[in-house]
């Protein structure tokens, strides 16, 4: 069996043992659920309910504005308590629908089973996926129906399920692969039905061989689906790196996976598609790994969107040590949050609670030009040089050295012995370049 990978990258400690063998636990919401109108890349949703309205489970409460957007649904039945700005995991206050759960879980209309998706056309399936509010659930949150609608001149020959889960600590995809194997495969089969000329690949890192075996068992009679074992290396799950590992194609700078005939979807996105198409369910739940040295009992939780981080942390026995840092997502690319009174959104793959020791921010010192960042960068950039240009605000040189190709994976900052904040400086420089482009 050949193990596939990309060039360069780093090997952060896995730290997955905390939760990788823990079956997913269901956690029912308490009283209050918060649904921010931004849970995706694209135009914010517009609330279509108002204070005092009764909403049902699965009812649409936020309408997508434009094609690159995704509607938002209530994950409980109850009463709209308010429509107001609430703190979001991204750190700002976002207009949100706040629902008081009545505990009845009374379903909205239209959530019925459907067996015969094969009679549906591609456009009908895209409509179902769009109406279900499905977005990329690996964290970025790009609307799935947009990804599934490449320009007609792009011939798609590979549908790749991103099951690399290369971020340390995270195990939600791993557990889904083990416990909802058939659903993941069914989701992929639905997508393959939309792209009959494409082949399906499920890429899994070799630190999850039990998941590889489980998926292989389910797809053994599927001629069109292949499990690809990937080397455990960060950032194996970065879209361009994953495509390269599986197809040996490089997505050209500034282009999209569709330009090399690929569409990449996360594991949980596949389950969401399966739920939407076969069971009429809009996106209302996700699996969240609650972990880190500060958590009493780390777990993989199946939760409804809109529940608060606090509820999830309490369901894991709260903190055993004082947490110094709470991260929405993994430790390499996740976002540090300053409150746990924030809702789980579509992209919340994990709540990582680090102790002071785990979260220590070492002091930055001079670059010694050791070149470890050059050896690490999966995009083959020169992070040390980019850093000096970014810090001097020499954006022309920054762009000339391909700074805009940085995927912000953080491998450079991770390996840097001088503990320089490399990727942080690139993020700032990239934002400035993009803002300047918009201005001119």
């Amino acid at each position, binding site marked *: 069996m050949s193990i596939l990978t990309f060039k360069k990258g780093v090997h*952060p*400690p896995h730290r997955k043992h905390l939760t990788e063998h823990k079956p997913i636990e269901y956690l029912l919401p308490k009283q209050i659920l918060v649904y921010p109108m931004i849970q995706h890349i694209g135009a914010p949703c517009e609330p279509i309910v108002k204070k005092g309205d009764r909403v049902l489970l699965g009812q649409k409460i936020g309408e997508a504005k434009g094609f690159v957007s995704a509607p938002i649904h209530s994950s409980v039945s109850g009463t709209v308590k308010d429509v107001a700005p609430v703190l979001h995991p991204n750190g700002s206050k976002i207009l949100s629908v706040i629902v008081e759960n009545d505990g009845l879980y009374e379903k909205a209309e239209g959530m019925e089973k459907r067996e015969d998706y094969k009679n549906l056309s591609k456009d009908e399936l895209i409509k179902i996926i769009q109406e279900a509010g499905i977005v990329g659930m690996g964290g970025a949150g790009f609307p799935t129906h947009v990804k599934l609608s490449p320009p007609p001149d792009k011939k798609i020959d590979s549908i790749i399920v991103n099951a690399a889960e290369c971020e*340390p600590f995270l195990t939600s995809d791993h557990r889904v692969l083990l416990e909802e194997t058939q659903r993941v495969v069914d989701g992929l089969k639905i997508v393959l039905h939309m792209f009959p000329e494409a082949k399906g690949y499920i890429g899994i890192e070799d630190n999850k061989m039990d998941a590889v075996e489980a998926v292989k068992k389910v797809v053994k009679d599927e001629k069109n689906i292949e499990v690809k074992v990937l080397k455990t290396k960060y950032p194996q799950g970065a879209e*361009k790196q994953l495509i*390269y590992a599986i197809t040996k194609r*490089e997505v*050209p*700078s500034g*282009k999209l996976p569709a330009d090399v005939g690929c569409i990449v979807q996360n594991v949980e996105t596949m389950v969401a598609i399966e739920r939407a198409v076969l069971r009429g369910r809009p996106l209302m739940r996700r699996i969240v790994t609650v972990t880190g040295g500060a958590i009493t009992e780390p777990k993989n939780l199946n939760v409804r969107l809109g529940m608060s981080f*606090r509820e999830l942390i309490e369901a894991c026995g709260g*903190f055993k040590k004082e*947490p*110094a*840092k*709470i*991260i929405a997502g993994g*430790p*390499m*690319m*996740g*976002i*540090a*949050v*300053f*409150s*746990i009174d924030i809702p789980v959104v579509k992209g919340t793959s994990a709540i*990582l609670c*680090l102790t002071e020791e*785990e*979260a220590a*921010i*070492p002091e930055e*010192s*001079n*670059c*010694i*030009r*050791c*070149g*470890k960042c*050059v050896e690490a960068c999966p*995009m*083959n*950039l*020169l992070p*040390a*040089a980019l850093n000096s240009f970014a810090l001097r605000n020499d954006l022309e040189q920054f762009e000339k*050295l*391909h700074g805009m*190709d940085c995927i912000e994976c*953080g491998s450079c*900052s*991770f*390996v*840097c*012995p*001088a*503990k320089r904040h490399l*990727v*942080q400086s690139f993020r700032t420089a990239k934002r400035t370049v993009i803002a300047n482009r918009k201005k001119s």
Partner: protein
Amino acid sequence: MAEMKFTVSSSPHIRSNDTVKGIMRDVVIALLPAAAAGVYFFKIQALLVMIASVASCVLSEYVWQKLTKQKVTIGDYSAAVTGLLLAFNLPPTVPLWIPVVGGIFAIIIVKQFFGGLGQNFMNPALAARAFLLASWPVQMTSWAVDGVSSATPLGILKEGGTALPSLFDVFIGHVGGCIGETSALALIIGGLYLLYKRVISWRIPVTYIGTVFVLMGILGRHGFMSGNPVYEVFAGGLMLGAIFMATDYSTSPITPLGQIIMGIGCGLLTSIIRIYGGYPEGVSYSIIIMNLFVPIIDKYTAPKVFGEVK
């Protein structure tokens, strides 16, 4: 749960265990076999030169950073590494004020004037050696083995002499030369340690030594194909230069291709100086000259970016 405050910072939220101090400590460890060989062959005098040189470098850095109100960084071992390397490039018989002056020059003028660690464009120890050699040529070129003054193997080759030490003596370091350069064996052991710890890559040492091997063999000291390349690579300062000096992070290219160009360039210059130059040995000057090309090498050898469209 009471009100808690959390740190908010940019990702990544975890860092590797590598540190500058750890890397420099590995370099010191890798230099120890050669230091031990130096003391074994050149006795207590070699040890005193090393102590004077390291003390001078560390103190110079401390005093300079105090005077200029900067953060004192002697704890990162980089000044100690410079001190050891400077001592390795001095004859064992030098008066002790020589390493002291050299250390001050290396640290203050070559390293700190240009911004400290990682910012200097020339190898501090080699620049100091060049300064000392130009200023006090007599003291800097007196060699002795076992208390008896003796020319270096490359010196004998240059003069066309015949009383050459055996290859075995050259390999273990029982010959005239600078304190840390004579024992190829000890230097190779240190080099393997650095490769194992991934402090350096093979690129500069292998291409540097390989180029000297090939060129000294082909060009030869007495015409085409007259060379003894095995003897040439173990004699003189090549091992010390190729493993420890040309690989200095600050003054060598950061790109993989650039490192190969650096190694080949150093090898080319060293061979030319050895065969056609006025000096018997050319390692120091070769490296210093190549140091000056590093920015331009880096500029033109940037690797092809993933997905780059020309």
